[in-house]
């Protein structure tokens, strides 16, 4: 049998990949590894010296640092829990409603709910600060109009409510994303399956629970992971609404604001790029572990259906 002639090296693949690889390396991979590297150094008398894992020992061992770190991680977890418990169920419910063929004006609802997602977090932070403001805000007036004034509190200024309030603002902003993804997944379910179900007497709500939900589970998994990564990298909304000190009394401090304050400094506190990188590395580790748990623990168990 004649050997097939050796294929020529396909240069065009390398050429076409090169720009993307180059840009990605320059703006993502290099900074990532440089941040990890920075966390292993410290500055002593104007000189950068290798300190190994000392920075991590300080971060987790020194009460001053570890307290702030666990506080930020705890707040971050709560931020994530609210998103998982509120944003994703609402997103799924909205998608289910939108995909109902009997709903009128569904394109309008879809657009209206999605619009906050494309707004800048600065606008969202500022607008909600004004809405909730005890002085100029419309929240106290609206509650008063329906006789519920007693429910009003300066939410953003109270330790016990501030983080939950901001989480809900973030949910309001981003609920459009799970809605759109689930909506797309629901549309891709073939009608034959639903019709076959109908023949077996599965209609209405039970069609959703027994047929549609299992079929969109992989999408829900992806949304959960996206939410996890986005929440543990969050920074902007808290910074825009509460500033780098994440008041009141650090009750809204999440890993992102803690890292920002440490890395760039704040007011009289001089920036410390090395401790800042250490926190950034810890964030990277946390997200990596979370994503791995999902990939190896959950995604492999999800079954895919071939239509």
């Amino acid at each position, binding site marked *: 049998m004649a050997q097939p002639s050796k294929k020529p090296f396909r240069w065009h693949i390398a050429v076409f990949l090169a720009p993307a690889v180059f840009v990605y390396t320059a703006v993502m991979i290099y900074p990532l590894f440089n941040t990890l590297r920075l966390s292993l150094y410290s500055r002593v008398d*104007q000189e950068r010296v290798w300190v190994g894992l000392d920075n991590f020992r300080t971060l987790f061992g020194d009460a*001053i*640092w570890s307290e702030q770190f666990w506080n930020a991680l705890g707040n971050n977890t709560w931020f994530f829990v609210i998103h998982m418990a509120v944003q994703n169920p609402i997103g799924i419910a909205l998608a289910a409603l939108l995909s109902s063929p009997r709903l009128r004006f569904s394109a309008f609802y879809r657009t209206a709910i999605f619009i906050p997602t494309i707004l800048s977090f600065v606008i969202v932070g500022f607008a909600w*600060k004004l809405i*909730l*403001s*005890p*002085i*100029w805000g419309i929240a*106290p007036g609206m509650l008063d109009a329906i006789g519920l004034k007693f429910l009003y*509190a*300066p*939410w*953003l*200024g*109270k*330790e016990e409510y501030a983080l939950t309030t901001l989480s809900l603002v973030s949910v309001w902003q981003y609920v459009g994303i799970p809605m759109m993804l689930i909506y797309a997944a629901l549309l891709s379910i073939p009608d034959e399956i639903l019709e076959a179900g109908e023949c077996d007497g599965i209609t209405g709500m039970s069609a959703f629970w027994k047929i549609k939900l299992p079929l969109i589970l992989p999408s829900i998994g992806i949304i959960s992971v996206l939410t996890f990564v986005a929440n543990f990298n969050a920074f902007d909304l808290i910074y825009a609404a*509460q*500033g780098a*000190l994440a*008041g*009141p*009394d*650090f009750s809204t401090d999440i890993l992102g604001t803690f890292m920002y304050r440490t890395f760039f400094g*704040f*007011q*009289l*506190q*001089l920036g*410390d790029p090395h401790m800042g990188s250490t926190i950034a590395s810890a964030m990277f580790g946390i997200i990596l572990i979370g994503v791995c748990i999902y990939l190896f623990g959950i995604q492999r168990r999800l079954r895919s259906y071939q239509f």
Partner: protein
Amino acid sequence: MTPTTRTSLKGALLATTLLGAGAAQAQDVTLTIESWRNDDLSIWQDEIIPAFEAEHPAIKLNFTPSAPAEYNAVLNSKLDAGSAGDIITCRPFDASLALYEAGHLTDLSDLDGMSNFSDVAKSGWSTDDGSATYCVPMASVIHGFIYNKEAFEEVGVEVPETEEEFYAVLDAFKEDGTYIPMAMGTNDQWEAATMGYNNIGPTYWKGEEGRTALIAGEQSLTDEQWVEPFRQLAKWGEYLGDGFEAQTYPDSQNIFTLGRAAIYPAGSWEIAGFNTQAIFDMGAFPPPVPAAGDTCYISDHTDIGIGMNAATEHPEAARTFLNWVASSEFSNIFANAIPGFFPLSDAEVTLEDPLAQEFISWRDECESTIRSTYQILSRGTPNLENDTWNASAAVIKGTESPEDAAARLQDGLASWYEPQQ
């Protein structure tokens, strides 16, 4: 035109330009000034620079400010690259001290004009032991309370001088109900520390006496005189507007300038803004003293200084300019152009703005000091200044007792500052 003639013409033009520049350089020296005060650009160009150049025609000035938030980073990289201007505007305390230690700023202790400044004024730009001063103090901001004169007349109260009178006035406004007694919020935290704690605090820790004793480790933050300001702040909560917990700094400014509040714990930097915003007459009073006849203390915080780049090519011209900045002539121009930023020199200054006059008059009656957390004490981790913001806000809200807050600050300070251990 043939190519040859074109080239030679270019060459000739180039030569004239070079010659011209060379000739100008031989006569004049141009000093470039680095600054973060881009708000003051027109004042420098229209008032300060012409006044200086009229006296020193051989020296030209070029004021090149950058954005405040970027200034430190931009300046550092320019200094490292050797492209920074001849004159450097100095941030107070550690940021400039680091530049001096890195050899970027010159020791100016022997400058003639330095004798016009008190030690407190120089403290922002001196080494820890006070042996070298590397920037000429330019301006400070004074803390106190600005009040709505019309509101005071309407409710029929007098300007308070003692603590007791202060709370009596606040009570009167609270009872009357037309005005929010005091406009301040705790959302942004820094007002509570800067316009609260460091405004009234010096009265209790006796200004410089307490501040230097704290740095020396002879007093601690849990001592009576350092806890008392927190006890006072704890009483403020009930006089602030509804929902003050979520009230921001701009909210407070607006509440006051719209005439909804009677008293505003202030820094003098507000004067220019309030003058344009408020339609009522304003007055100011210094922090009230515990008992009638007690010495009053004010926070007269050093904010802007000006120094010389160690790498400048024109050290003589730079010194001439800095000496002029230290003179009363500069002080007068500067203070009137930017009411609310007060010159630090001992020279007599005549201010035209009545509110600014009121603020600066306290220098004669009261002892001056600077904010307690700024010199040396905010170098470590945890950062004392940031912690003070947090503690002051918590005490006003009533979520932390004054004693607990003071103990927490002391623990934090003692964890890294040796004299306090």
